Structure formats: C-alpha cells, structure tokens
C-alpha cells in the first residue's frame, strides 16, 4: 500500500526542509538531555558527565510531588474527559436536531478559545463560587478543556461506523444501552485509546490552565517548572524534561503499536492525525 503511494521522484526541496526541520525540532531536546547529564549547574557549557541532577531529582520531594500531581491530574482528567466526551460524541452523532447542533457548536468552543481565556474564565468561576483552588479545580478545568478533543476524535470514528451496525445490534436482541455497551463502545476502542493518549499528554504538559487554577496541593509539574525558570532553572528540571520526553515517546509508541497487537487495522495515531480511513 505504502509502496503504491510513493511517487517516483523525491522532491529535493521537501526532503531538505524535512531534514532541517528534524534537526531544529530535536536540537533543544538533545540540549535538555545533554545538560541534564552536566556535572555543573550551567546550561551553556558542558563540563563533564554526571548523574547528580537525577540524584537531585530523586531527592527533591517537591519536584517528585509535582510529577506525581501531574500524573494524577492527567489520569483523572483523561478518564473524566473520555467519559464525558464519548457521551457527547454519541449524543451529537445521533441527536440530529437543532438543539443538538447548538450543543455541538458550544462544546467545540474550547478548541477555538485561546487557553489563556479558558484559564482566566476558570479562575474567575472557581474563585467566584468560592471553590478553593486545588488539584480538584485544575482537574475540573482540564476536563472542560479536553472534552472537545475527545468528542472530535470519537465523532470522527463514529462517522465511519455505519448506523446499520447499531441497528444490527438492536436487531440481534440488544436494548439501546446494550447496543452501546456491547457493540458501539468496543468498536470505538481505537479512537478511545488515541483520544486518551492525546488528552493525557496534553494535560500532563498543560501549563496555562494549571497556572490559573492551581492552589494548595502540590503544584502541577509545568507550574513548578514555570516558577523556577522565571528565576533561573535548576538542571534537575532538565532531568525531569528528559524523563518526560522518554515517557511521552513510550506513550506514542504504545499508541502506534498497541492497536496492531489487538489486530486492528487502524492505529490510534491515524485517528489523531485523522488520516488513513
């Protein structure tokens, strides 16, 4: 398939741009990884190899707490937005009324709203109703922000599942709810995996919303990183950055490989990119 799509002559221009792009893309990341191994607290000169910043990281409870807080926020927000976003996608796909279209438009608004606006709005809301800023408020804001991503991806997949599949389930003895549970949701699994990974990664790294809505709990990692880089970064941050990169690389590889292991044709990466129907 891939072979058939390849064009005969490679356009040199595009290939060169791509090569330069990859170099540009990875240069700062390699720098982060390199300086996380520096034996000195410098980000401009590499003086020698050392694991001291990883050691620092392991012994820096505040950073570890932040890392765990971010993992927790990302996990809960992913589950929450998957549930709500999938419900929304199913509802919107099937309720084809005027009301449904209005709801559909409103729920997509977070996608076209700059994050700083969403962040300010969330801060004002939580403060206004007297909700103490905490990990809970971060999670609430992140779920609100992520629902739209899940909805878009799941709707994309649903559009490819003919209405007849649902009818077939009803025809074969399923109540509407059973049809949903036994047929539609299993069919959506690749989309759910893809959306889940995307949301997890976005929330884990989200700074702006977390910045406006975080409170007393251990700070989400990006907020902590921000607090420290305004006044100069500790190379322990580089160590964290390197670990995050490795973690997200593993996640993406999982997104690529897992669906293949389950024997499904489409990988969730295709769903993220919207390609390969």
């Amino acid at each position: 398939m891939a072979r058939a799509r390849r064009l005969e002559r490679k356009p040199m221009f595009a290939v060169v741009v791509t090569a330069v792009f990859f170099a540009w893309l990875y240069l700062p990341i390699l720098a982060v990884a390199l300086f996380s191994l520096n034996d000195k607290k410098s980000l401009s000169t590499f003086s020698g190899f050392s694991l001291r910043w990883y050691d620092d990281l392991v012994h820096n409870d505040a950073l570890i707490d932040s890392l765990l807080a971010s993992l927790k926020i990302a996990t809960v927000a992913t589950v929450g937005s998957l549930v709500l976003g999938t419900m929304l996608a199913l509802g919107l796909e099937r309720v084809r009324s005027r009301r449904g279209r209005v709801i559909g438009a409103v729920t997509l608004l977070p996608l076209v709203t700059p994050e700083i606006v969403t962040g300010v709005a969330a801060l004002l809301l939580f403060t206004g109703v007297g909700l103490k800023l905490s990990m809970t408020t971060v999670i609430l804001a992140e779920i609100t922000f992520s629902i739209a991503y899940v909805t878009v991806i799941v709707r994309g997949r649903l559009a490819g599942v003919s209405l007849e599949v649902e009818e077939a389930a009803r025809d074969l003895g399923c109540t509407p709810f059973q049809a949903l549970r036994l047929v539609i949701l299993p069919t959506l699994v690749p989309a759910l995996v893809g959306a889940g990974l995307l949301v997890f990664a976005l929330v884990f790294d989200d700074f702006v919303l977390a910045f406006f809505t975080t409170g007393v709990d251990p700070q989400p990692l990006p907020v902590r990183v921000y607090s420290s880089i305004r006044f100069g970064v500790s190379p322990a941050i580089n160590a964290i950055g390197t670990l995050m990169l490795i973690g997200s690389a593993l996640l993406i590889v999982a997104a690529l490989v897992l669906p293949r292991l389950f024997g499904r044709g489409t990988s969730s990466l295709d769903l993220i990119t919207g390609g390969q129907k």
Partner: protein
Amino acid sequence: MAVLDRRGAKPAPRSAQRTWLWGALLALPTAWMVAFFVFSMAIVVLLSFGRTTNDGFPAFATSTANYRALWNDVYLELFWRSLLYALATVAISVLIAYPVAYAVALHGGRYKNALIAAIVVPFFASYLIRMYAWKALLSDDGLVNSGLRGSGLSDGVTFLNTPWAVIGGLVYGFVVFMILPIYASLERLDVSLIEAGKDLYHGPVRTFFSVTLPATRAGLYGGVLLVFLPALGDFVSAQLLGGASTFMMGNLVQQQFTEGQNWPLGSALTVAMMAALTVLMVAYLRATSTQAQEP
C-alpha cells in the same frame, strides 16, 4: 424462548423509542459545559464591567472604565503586534509544515508512521522546558553562537530577545498543529492526481499550486486555525524569549492577574481579545467557505 417471555412487556412509547438514550447521553456533558465553560465565560464578561475594592478584591459593578482604559494607543499597538506575530507564526508554520508533511506523507514509505511519531513526540515533552532550552541554546554565548564562531561563519548573532525569537518560539511550540492536518489531507490525496497534474502542468511547482494545494485546502485551513489561536494567546514565548518591546496580549492578560492586581481590567482584556477573535474567525470562515466552493 427468552424472546417470547419478553413479549408480554409493555411496549415503549412510540416516538421516544430510539432517542431517549442519546438524549440522556447528551445531558450530562452539556450540563458540564454549561456550568464550567459557558457560565465561566459569563463571569468574565460580568467582571469586565467590575472594579477593584479598597482591600484589593475584584467585585462586580457596572462601570465601563476598564474598556475605556483599553482604548489607548499603547494597547492598540500591542494588539496589532500580537496579531502580526500570530500571523507570522502561521505563515512560517505553513512554509515548514507543507514540505515536511509532503515528504512524510508521499515519500515516507514504510517509515511514515515512525516519522510522524518522531514529529509528535517532542511536542508532548514539556513546552516550557523546550522553550527554556532555546533560551540557553540561543544566548549570546550559547551553543549555537559558539558553533557559529567556532566554524568562522559569524562572530555571533543576537537571536534572543528579538521579535524573531518570540515568533520562532511560537512556531516551535505550535507547528505540529499545522503538520498533522496537512499530513492527514495529503494522506487522503489520490497520488494519481499529482501524476496527472505533472503531465498536465509540466513541472512540480505548478502541479503543487494547481493540484496538491487545492486538494489539501481543508487540512491547511484547519492548521491555520489551530496555530493562529494558541499563538495569539501565548505568553510564554514572549516572556522567555522576548525583548523589551515584544509584549503580547497574553502577557498583558497575565500581567493583570498577577502583578497588576486588576482582575476586572484583565477580564475586559480577555473579552476584547475574544471579541477580536470572533470577528477574525467569522471573516476567516466566510473567506474559506467561499473559496472552498470554487472548483
């Protein structure tokens, strides 16, 4: 036999038979979005007419003072600057994203998925840390300048604290949102179209503009939106990489919620930003939808 048993059950009311479940599914997320999004936006609008009390707290009021404060040359100039940076970010992103997406989608072969993964991975590693890494790399005595001096190409370039550093940071932060939709639409593109185009238009450049570009317009439009919006609201790039005169709207908003201690003014800024965006979006949607109708 179970089927027969169920026969006795009272039939469901006719028309509601198939839609109640979907309606019910819609209810919870809709309520959520109303409570946490629509309602919060309403508070922003309300507070934009508010004031700050003597003890420094934001409070509702009915004053237009915040909006009047915005109507000032400095803020207007800043608005145009932000718009300019965001547009430049979009333009550069397109110039990067098209060749990259093209090369990967049409010449990636069996490495296609691996290449896309390689593009996506860095964007899931901390945005802040990557931005900060640029700061270290591009500083006057940083690695890039050391490299330039070492190779004798130049005796140092001032990268940091310039508008280009801010735009570069924005491009670096958001270009993936341009690559993915363009990649997706190139993926769906029928390659024979391009080949036919080459016969018809003689030469890859004309083919690109006559065949490939129009066929992938949807992806391009999506990417433009996905890059423009976050670029316009960003405040990290200008803060970490910017100079003395590269303040953007995002910085202004953030300033009011931190040092400025003026939430009502910050709210008014946010509303103004959304209003401007809405105007731009409507204009953009009009333009793209009429263009899309052309053959």
